Every structure is written in structure tokens, then in C-alpha cells.
């Protein structure tokens, strides 16, 4: 009997074929009929235009796009690779900035009940705000659409990292802290050699949640600010009524999001420990 993995893979492929098959059939153009009414003849072409494209068309387009992902033929015609790179660049910039702030402050809050009590009300109010709600304010203050998008990423990825860091640090086992104390480690050394590794799995969980949210938000943000990026690309192709491109870029958003998550998952594995 084949292993579980092989059987799962076979099943996955059959689901894919089934789904693509149904999709292909559902989107076939109506058969040319002999007795078309005048009205149908008039509308026929237009109806075909607005039809959801079949998977074969999407695959053909994907092949063309992916064989030359980085071409640049002017403001409104860039390869999918370039658009994705813009989005990833914005996500990573905002995300790293959030990390630089969230980790130290999270540490501080986790170590000091006083700071926790003092800062918690602000966190509780700011955290539930939809990141896109910041956009107008960001555009007004920063006066730059690109930087505003990065700011929105920054603001949405900061909370999970901040809260998880604080939680992880606050819940480091007292025994381990006592080990550091009986060995007379300095506060910095205690933070780096005992508290950080002890809290790392919790911190990484927060970072993984953050990157997921950031990737969700960038698409919406780019639809708003325009210019470049995968979010803008989707919106632009929709305006062009090029649905094959829309479907193709939706799939690419999923793939890149998965890769980002995989990378953080790998990092999480590295810092995990069993008690």
C-alpha cells in the first residue's frame, strides 16, 4: 500500500483536475447556433467578452507572464515579477520597521508590570483599528503614497509581534530566571541568553501572524494608493476587464503569501525547544 503522502498527493492532483475540468466546462462559449435571433447576433460577441475565462486561457497567460516576469514596458505595463517585488519590498520594509519597534517595547512591557499597566490601554485602543483607516492620515502627513503604504504595513504588523513578545517575555519560567540570577548574569546577558531564547518561540509565532496580516493588507493598500505593486496590478487588470490576468495575479498573491509563511515557519522551527 502506498504511503500516506503518496495517496494524499494523488488525491490532491485529482481534486485539481476535477476543479479545473468543471471550471473549463462551465466557461465554454455557447455553441454556435444556426438560428440566432437578431438580438443574439448583436449581443453574442459582447457576452463572450465578459465571460469568466476558462483555466486553459489562464494557464496560457501564466505561461507567457512567467516566462518573462520582469519586463518593463512603461508605467502601466510591467511584468508580474516586478509588481510582486514592489509589494514584497513594501511588506518587508514596513515589517522590519515594526520589528525594530515591537521587539524592544514588547521586551520592556513583558519585563515590567509597571510599563505593561501604563501602555496597555493605548495598545488595546490602537490594535483593533483597521490598518487602512490610517491611510488618509498617513497620506496627509507623509505626503507620499509609497511611504504611506509602508506605514500601513508597519502599523498592522506591529501588534501581534508586540503582544506576543510581551507575553512570551512575561511568562518565562521563574526557574530559568533564577538560574540566571544565581549565576550573576548582567541584565543584558540575562535578556539575551535566557529570556530571549526562552521567549523566542512565542515571539516567532507573533512574527508569523504579522507577516500574514501584512501580506493581506498590502494588496488592499496598493489598490488605494496605485502606481505599482500586485494590489495595483489586480485593480488595473480589472479596469482593463482582463479577467485572466486578475485570476492569475490572485493565484500569485496566494503563492507569495505561502512562501512568506513558509519562511517564518522555518525560522520558528529553528528556535523551538522541548521542555
Amino acid at each position, binding site marked *: 500500500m502506498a504511503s500516506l503522502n503518496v495517496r494524499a498527493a494523488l488525491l490532491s492532483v485529482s481534486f485539481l483536475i476535477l476543479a479545473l475540468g468543471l471550471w473549463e466546462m462551465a466557461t465554454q462559449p455557447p455553441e454556435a447556433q444556426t438560428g440566432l435571433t437578431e438580438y443574439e447576433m448583436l449581443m453574442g460577441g459582447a457576452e463572450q467578452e465578459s465571460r469568466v475565462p476558462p483555466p486553459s486561457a489562464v494557464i496560457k497567460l501564466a505561461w507567457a507572464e512567467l516566462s518573462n516576469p520582469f519586463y518593463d514596458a512603461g508605467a502601466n505595463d510591467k511584468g508580474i515579477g516586478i509588481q510582486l517585488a514592489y509589494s514584497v519590498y513594501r511588506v518587508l520594509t514596513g515589517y522590519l520597521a515594526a520589528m525594530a519597534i515591537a521587539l524592544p517595547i514588547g521586551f520592556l512591557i513583558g519585563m515590567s508590570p509597571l510599563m505593561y499597566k501604563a501602555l496597555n490601554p493605548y495598545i488595546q485602543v490602537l490594535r483593533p483599528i483597521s490598518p487602512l483607516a490610517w491611510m488618509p492620515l498617513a497620506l496627509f502627513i507623509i505626503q507620499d503614497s509609497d511611504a504611506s503604504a509602508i506605514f500601513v504595513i508597519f502599523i498592522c504588523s506591529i501588534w501581534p509581534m508586540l503582544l506576543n513578545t510581551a507575553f512570551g517575555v512575561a511568562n518565562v519560567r521563574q526557574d530559568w530566571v*533564577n538560574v540566571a540570577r544565581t549565576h550573576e548574569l548582567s541584565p543584558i546577558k540575562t535578556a539575551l*541568553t535566557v529570556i530571549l531564547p526562552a521567549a523566542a518561540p512565542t515571539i516567532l509565532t507573533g512574527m508569523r501572524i504579522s507577516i500574514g496580516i501584512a501580506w493581506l493588507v498590502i494588496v488592499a493598500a496598493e489598490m488605494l494608493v496605485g502606481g505599482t505593486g500586485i494590489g495595483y496590478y489586480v485593480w488595473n487588470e480589472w479596469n482593463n476587464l482582463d479577467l485572466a490576468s486578475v485570476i492569475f495575479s490572485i493565484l500569485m498573491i496566494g503563492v507569495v503569501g505561502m512562501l512568506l509563511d513558509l519562511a517564518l515557519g522555518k525560522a520558528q522551527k529553528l*528556535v523551538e525547544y*522541548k*521542555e
Partner: protein
Amino acid sequence: MSKSFLEVDGLSKVYPDGQGGDLTVFEDIRFALEKGEFVCIIGHSGCGKSTILNVLAGLDEASAGNVVMNGKEIKGPGLERGVVFQNYSLLPWKTTLNNIVFAVKARWPSWSKEKVKEHSERYLKMVGLEHALNRKPSQLSGGMRQRVSIARAFATQPELLLLDEPFGALDALTRGVIQDELVKIWEETRQTVFMITHDVDEAILLSDRIFLMSNGPNARIAESVKVDIPHPRARATIFQNPAYHKTRDYLVDFLVNRSGSALPEKDGTPKIAEPAKGVTQSTPTPAEPETQSESDTAARAVNA
């Protein structure tokens, strides 16, 4: 009175009792340890043994009294005092070796990498773990983890070693093996040790003196029992010594019958007891079966 290595003077610990009043767990604890002594402390659960040990370690603060070691008052934790916790307290993300290396580095920051490693390996070898250097604590059994923890404490060569029920969580067989190792490593190093245990046999095997605590609240260290059995001792042969049985009976009697009411001397120092004084140690006569089984049952009741 000449100054001892460690002097504990009038220690007490008071907690709020939750109804607006105070609960004095223990009070006026006075004792002294000499350099190179192995002292165990026995008492019923909750009388405050761990609290006393944590005060000595500098991890907890007493409500009154002070502790002076080498003429200096103990104010916080320090490397000259090593602690072995009941739950091992190894850092789970570090390997066995690195758990020791981390401590040795903290103790001697100027040592070279090679020297630190060589020193750490030597102590792991002493507890028979040279084959498990690169395993993580989660891959070790409870007994092995406690060995690492003991190796870590001895490797930093503290002036005072504090052990809080180090074998409490181990099964009887493993406990016996590690007790033997502790005897061996102690005979080699002759470090000053202060240890909490619930096990009367363990206390006799290891200690020069045994402190007996009365029950809380307001617990005291009522007696200091001398163990008149020469070193080196071994778990397998110590039973043949008549002094062993005398001492054991004395301890069990205290724990079963007298721990509720026992008091120290008027000046607060523990009463000195020498239950095996004058017992000839060269002629091993087996103890009467009747008394032995009786005290066995009692000891088990205490251990439970």
C-alpha cells in the same frame, strides 16, 4: 564565640494570612555551618525549608534576621553559592554540555574556550554523562537531568552548595545510584553542602549533621543531630553500622512523635543530639528485626 563559615541569625518569615493578620512560617532560625560540612535539613512539608534555602541562595528575602557568609552579609544571589533545584532548572534550548559551559563561563569569564569545555566535560564525566554531551535536556531521563544539574552546581565550585530535595522527583533505584554519585563527588571535592530532604536514609548516608525542624507555623530548627559514622560511606554497607540504626530511630522518633512540640535551646540554637555516641563502630551487629520493621513503617509514613 569564634566565627563560623556561615552564620544564620534570627531568621524569620512572615506572610499575610489572607485575613488581615500575619502568618509566621518560621521564626528565630539560628545555626552555623563549618567549611566542608555536609548538613541536611529535615522537617514536615510546609515548615519552610525551601524558604530558608532560598534565603541562603539570595533568591528570597527573610522578614527578619540575617545570614553572614565568610564575614559578609548575604544580600542577593551570587556565584559563591550554587543551587540545585528540585525541578533541575536546566535551560532546555541548550545541550547538556552547554548547560554546564554557560555556568562555567559565568564563573570564570577570563577562561579560554578550551579550558571551559575541558572543565565542563570533566564534571559531566564525574556524574557519568560523558556519552550525552550533545543531547538536549528533553532527550534525557529525569535522573540524567538531575545529574546534569548537580554537575553544573559542582562545576562552578561554589563555597556553599544548596540542594533543595534534589532527588525528590526520582524513583528509588535512580535515587540510590545518584546518591552514590553525590557521595563520590563530595568525597572528592569536600564542598560545603546544605541540603533539604524528606528521606531519613538519604540524610544519614550523606550528612555530618542533620537539622530537625519542628512543624509550622512558627517552626524552629529544634535539634542538630550528629551522624557518628566515618567517611567514606557507601549505601550498600552503611546498614551494617549500629550507629546507623541508632541515628535512624532517633530521627524517625522525632518526626513521628516530637516534631509538633520540640523546641531549641533557650538561646535559640538547636539542641545538640548525639544518638549514636559511644556506639562501637567496628562490630557490625544486625539490629533486632522487630525494631527495624517498626521504624521502617514509620519512615515510610514520613516519606509519603
